[in-house]
């Protein structure tokens, strides 16, 4: 029987069942298979554990204070017992949207340029630079922003609002620019990957039809990679929403909704870190912080999930079209 396996079927995959019959059962096999399965199980258990622990404390906080108050209350004063989370959510939202505009969009355009329009020799250099930039810790960017960006923000604010403006440079504008600088390398690398996955045949066909590289880039390649590019930007947005330490350094920590982009503000993650140090565990103050982290979790995971859904939905319809064509 083994001879026929070797000669006739050597090039095709032999189902394990035919071999298992001839193999001696070894206990080591089961142990290792068990370990491998256990690793898969561990991943699931760990995820469930993380979400359960956070949710347990968070739900207690929501029960104490009420979801409406947590999401829309305007005053966050734990020492007075008021837990209005709107200023926090506002800060997170504006910072993340600002980061997407200041960082993700330019990164996307840069990826288009490097992938489509730039000389081919520039690509590895650019890629290496952005890989190093992406590996730099966020606190380093935060510190650089504190030292160099915040004074500039103060100057801009004084230019915009007059010499008498009540600004110190820390605020949503600084935080948005910092987050943009932080997510740009990652968004760039993801977009570059997405654009390079567009099959070369599409580009060649477009060129054969007489289109310039610009036209090819914007009418063929980008729509071709469209969903993945969207995913990349969303991923950057989620990362910007969740960033903690760097934002805490430049945002000022004022627990109210600012009147303009240059006044001090706060975000959900910043407030969690600042208040967690003083909060006694298992009190309302502590539980509410976990509730706010649940809000952050839902926001972040929701954004990533939506982007993945958009990605796969696009792909399935495209492949259907491709099959027809």
């Amino acid at each position, binding site marked *: 029987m083994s001879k026929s396996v070797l000669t006739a079927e050597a090039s095709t995959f032999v189902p394990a069942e035919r071999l298992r019959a001839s193999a001696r059962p070894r206990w080591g096999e089961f142990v290792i298979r068990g370990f491998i399965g256990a690793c898969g199980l561990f991943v699931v258990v760990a995820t469930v554990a993380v979400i359960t622990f956070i949710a347990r404390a968070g739900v207690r906080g929501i029960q104490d204070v009420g979801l409406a108050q947590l999401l829309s209350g305007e005053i966050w*004063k*734990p*020492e*007075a017992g008021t837990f209005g989370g709107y200023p926090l959510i506002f800060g997170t939202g504006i910072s993340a949207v600002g980061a997407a505009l200041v960082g993700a969009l330019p990164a996307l355009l840069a990826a288009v340029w490097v992938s489509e329009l730039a000389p*081919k*020799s520039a*690509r*590895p*250099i650019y890629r*290496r630079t952005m890989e190093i930039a992406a590996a730099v810790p966020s606190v380093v960017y935060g510190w650089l922003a504190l030292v160099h960006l915040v*004074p500039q923000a*103060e100057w801009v604010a004084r230019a915009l609002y007059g010499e*008498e*403006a*009540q*600004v*110190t440079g*820390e605020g949503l504008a600084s935080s948005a620019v910092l987050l943009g600088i932080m997510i740009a390398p990652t968004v760039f690398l993801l977009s570059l990957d997405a654009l*390079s*996955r567009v099959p*070369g045949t599409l580009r060649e066909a477009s060129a054969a039809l007489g289109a310039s590289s610009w036209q090819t880039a914007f009418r063929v390649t980008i729509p071709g990679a469209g969903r993945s590019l969207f995913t990349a930007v969303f991923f950057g947005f989620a990362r910007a929403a969740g960033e903690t330490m760097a934002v805490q350094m430049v945002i*000022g*920590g*004022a*627990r*109210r909704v600012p009147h303009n982009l240059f006044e*001090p503000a706060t975000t959900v993650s910043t407030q969690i870190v*600042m*208040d967690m*140090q*003083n*909060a*006694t*565990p298992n009190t309302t103050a502590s539980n509410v912080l976990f509730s706010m982290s649940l809000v952050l979790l839902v926001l972040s995971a929701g954004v990533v999930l939506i982007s993945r859904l958009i990605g796969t939905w696009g792909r399935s319809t495209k492949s259907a079209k491709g099959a027809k064509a």
Partner: protein
Amino acid sequence: MNSMTSTPRSGVFVSHVGHVVRFAGAALLPCAALLGACDKSEPPAPSAPAASASTNSAATTPQAGPVRASGSSALQPLVNAAKEKYEAENKGTSIEVSAGGSKKGLADVNSGAVHIGNSDIFAPDDLKSGLVDHKVAVVGFAAMANKGPYSEKVAALSLQDLSRIFAGTVKNWKEVGGESQPIVVINRAAGSGTRTVFGNIVLGGDKFVESQTEDNSGALVAKLKQTKGAISYLALSFKDDELKTFAVKGDSGVTEPTTANITSGAYPIWSYEHMYTKGEPTAGAKAFLDYIGSPAFQENVLPNVKGFIPITQMKISREKD
């Protein structure tokens, strides 16, 4: 993937350049280190043991591990001064002090993360049971502001003025006697004992206007120096020549924040500095606290640390903030 569209020659050249650049960069750093800036300064002088008037027998008490303290940044300079003297006199002991704010100190000592919690405020009611208070000093607080032409003429502020400035009703320096410049209130973070003390005495509670917060006194000093129109509140241990410190204007005239005025009670903004332990302190913590309370420290060392006053000099006392 990419190689399909790139010419091999340029690709190899670029990777070659990349390799050389990387290696060169990795080699240059240590070479520059060896050949370049060598530190020619004198080695740090070994810390001489302080001449102590009384011998503290705490050296013989065994302590498993270091004594940990955390909390108030206002108290931190004093605790650090005590730590240096204590460690020099008692070889083998180790005190670790970190900041975080009075409320963090109280939370940490309550949860057992540290042995001693430094606090500018009395422990709140929900934490008070179980915590033992050790008062170690008195410190005064004052409103300090960015030095500028707008506030030069303002020598002192009344408690009402201060309260209105920090509550946000007074928004411009010209309303309190200076030139026109918007007031930028900078607060301490919510966990700060300085904020609580100043709020209770000046505003009658935590009624500060919501504005930019700084995490600790040191960062606050830096911020005040660089922001025009900024004002905040700090312990007198952070008094700085580059900042304007305000005296308090009362019915009987202007009261400067001096030691004499604080001990007599004329200057109202002060508080005790507490070092809390959970129950009775452990051996090492007790030894350290005894040292801080000893006359040797309180009379010889404490008065030399800027801004702190021995409790024994106080002619008035308080039961709560």
